[in-house]
């Protein structure tokens, strides 16, 4: 367990280092406007630009600039170029909205993904299976941006059933919080419900032909016990892997589009704005924030694996 933790920590440092260096390089390679010039504003004197360049260290060698940036990010006093805000404050401000979106959506996609997958596996070949298959394929195929705009247009603007924009804190008004999030949750979850139900269905069909399922029947278990305790339980193991990856990626930035469309004031929206403005400090900080969650959830998946499948041992084998 200790060896596992140490190895995972090492991996995390490596990933964060690689991701941050890459982001930093990409930003410095693209023909961006000189940050000093854009900070000085239109019609600024060359002296002003020079002094900003001097003050922010824009003419230091790149490695030096990178190190300064990382130091600032990890000490928490990193300032954005645009508007000179405290980046960490902005990220912390965005966390409730982003987490609300991701956790809520995750609950929905896991619940319906497993429910639909289970039902279509148990009724494989039947009418329910066919209907669910069509729904799942439709869900997987529909582009998020199209779904989001259609939902917004019909359910929010035209009929006014749901609020179109904004985020209300959970502690302020739990009902209003959920009311504002229903459309974004649905938008994020729909693709994954389709995907998870298909994956679970095929896992379950595979497991159903396992010898131990026959053993379970031969013991005299009821069909439902056979399906839930033996088939579903063993089929969920790969789903957990998928979930860990998807959830980490979701917090790490997959929800950017949804946050932007629904005007949820989360980390994703902040990332969206910062990229528009080519504002390096927040981009760097958000990329690290995202990478951290991706790596973290990967480690959690491994721990969950060892719990779900006793044949897997933490720290050993694997390679």
């Amino acid at each position: 367990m200790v060896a596992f933790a140490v190895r995972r920590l090492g991996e995390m440092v490596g990933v964060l280092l690689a991701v941050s260096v890459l982001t930093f390089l990409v930003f410095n390679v693209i023909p961006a406007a000189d940050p000093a010039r854009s900070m000085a504003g239109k019609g600024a004197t060359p002296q002003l630009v020079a002094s900003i360049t001097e003050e922010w260290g824009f003419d230091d060698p790149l490695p030096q600039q990178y190190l300064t940036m990382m130091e600032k990010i990890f000490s928490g006093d990193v300032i954005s170029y645009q508007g000179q805000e405290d980046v960490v404050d902005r990220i912390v401000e965005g966390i409730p909205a982003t987490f609300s979106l991701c956790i809520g959506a995750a609950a929905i996609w896991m619940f319906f993904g497993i429910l639909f997958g289970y039902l279509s596996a148990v009724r494989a070949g039947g009418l329910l299976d066919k209907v669910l298959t069509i729904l799942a394929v439709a869900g997987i195929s529909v582009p998020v941006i199209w779904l989001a705009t259609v939902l917004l247009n019909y359910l929010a603007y035209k009929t006014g059933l749901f609020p179109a924009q904004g985020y209300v804190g959970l502690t302020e008004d739990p009902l209003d919080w959920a009311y504002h999030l229903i459309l974004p949750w649905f938008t994020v979850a729909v693709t994954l419900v389709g995907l998870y139900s298909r994956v679970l269905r095929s896992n379950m069909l595979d497991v159903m032909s396992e010898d131990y399922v026959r053993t379970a029947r031969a013991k005299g278990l009821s069909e439902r016990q056979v399906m839930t305790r033996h088939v579903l339980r063993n089929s969920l193991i790969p789903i957990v892997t998928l979930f860990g990856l998807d959830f980490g990626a979701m917090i790490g930035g997959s929800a950017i589009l949804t946050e932007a469309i629904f005007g949820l004031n989360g980390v994703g929206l902040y990332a969206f704005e910062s990229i528009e403005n080519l504002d390096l400090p927040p981009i760097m900080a958000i990329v690290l924030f995202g990478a951290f969650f991706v790596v973290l959830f990967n480690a959690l998946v491994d721990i969950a694996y060892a719990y779900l499948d006793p044949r897997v041992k933490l720290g050993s084998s694997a390679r």
Partner: protein
Amino acid sequence: MSGAPLISVRDLRVGFATEGGLVQAVDGVSFDLAPGEVLAIVGESGSGKSVTAQTIVGLTRSHNARIEGSVRLGDAELIGASESELRKVRGERIGMVFQDPMTSFNPVYRIGSQIAEAIRAHRPAVGRDEAHEQAIALLDSVGIPDAERRVDDYPHQFSGGMRQRAMIAMALAVEPEVLIADEPTTALDVTVQAQILALLERINRERRLATILITHDLGVVAEVADRVLVMHEGQIVERGSLDEVFYSPQDPYTRSLLGAVVRIDGAAPLRPPRTSEPLLEVTDLVKHYPVRRGLPRREVDRVRAVDGVSFSLRQGETLGLVGESGCGKSTLCRAALRLIEPSSGSVRFEGREIAGLSRREMRPLRREMQIVFQDPYASLNPRKRVGQIVGDPLKLQGEASGGELRRRVLELLDRVGLSREHYDRYPHEFSGGQRQRIGIARALAPRPKLIVADEPVSALDVSIRAQILDLLAELQEDFGLTYLFVAHDIGVVRHVSDRIAVMNAGRIVEEGPADRVCEQPSDPFTQKLLSAVPIPDPRQARARRQTVGSG
């Protein structure tokens, strides 16, 4: 036979609708079974014996199955009974033991909780703790040492024999009247098989169970059965007491089945002595796997898979390598062929040291040494056609291409008893025996000198087994091949080998001419191996049991 039958099967027919039409798996089977009796159903795979057994408890029910006839358990009719009625029969009145104890347990639950689940499915009043206690007692009764502790193990922590014991314990959990054992020892080593058969016999005696034993191994039948049914293509072709079936078989199929058995006590075919130069010489070969733990990872122990083995193999000779699973025989083969890197020792092929050769230097030698694998299902690429599978080694070595390649492959197919039409088929279209022929053709393709056959027949039915062994012998004569023949079944090994080496725990414990090793074994391990082989002869089996006593 004693008293009224407990189970009475009448004119049972089971058919499965497939794309190719109705496949009649069981075609009019009838038999009775009384308490305390052991009925063996013998047949090769596909004969319908397992389908018969599973149909009794309704496990073959599905939308494409057509089931007719009658199965009575006491007064109850089971064909057409509702699922909930059948559920009360399964486990409660009829316990089942399956072939492969590894895959028949759910890998994610503890052994004890799977047994407890069987108890609680029928005895809802039994609490969790009580069921756990009962599971311990059951495991203890089937001879699991330290059951109190082992009850919380997962299936993968048990050995194959212990898993099968636990499987039997689970089948007995609710004290059924009938035990159906479907190939209960096929996946086990011969010494473990003997223990499991003894256990089944003891349980049958103690509990007066009606036992149905399904097997393809006539040796197993001779050890434990009272009555025998021989099944072939869904029908019973022979029925009678053990002695009747073995000593005066009426049906030609039964006779061919008995004739095909490779017997440990039978005389091996006579072979001319080989005196030529050694082809393969292995000296002090060692393969250790380090066990690393801690941080930094330190080697704390090593698995001595092959621990100083020496042997030599002369041109045209067959050396049989026998041992139980895990004794290191497969590792030895792989290290000798340099498929894995030996830790130390020397391997000389045609007098040339190959232990230190680079991958590149090994390449031209690879064609000289080919391997035939155990599992004809898993060792052929399912997405390649037979022509490709057999032809690829030739193409890779740049030996032939185009029309020449096709001609050579067809010739090889012909040589191993397959036909020209098979060229464009996929492996799944073939039976196990045919697949092994494909594997042999593939190995023959580059015209090797040495063929390592790693358990080439242990996954095959007895009659197929004899055919494949004959084919190998024929090919040896024709091509002057040298075989290293690996198997856990000493009977099979004796049948084909000039000399036999017996391996145990990474070492060769005995080596010598095949007859000498089988008739006057000097090492206790060889003796144990020999005595555990079931003899397909009821009288001899009885005599042996009397001398050995009930173990």
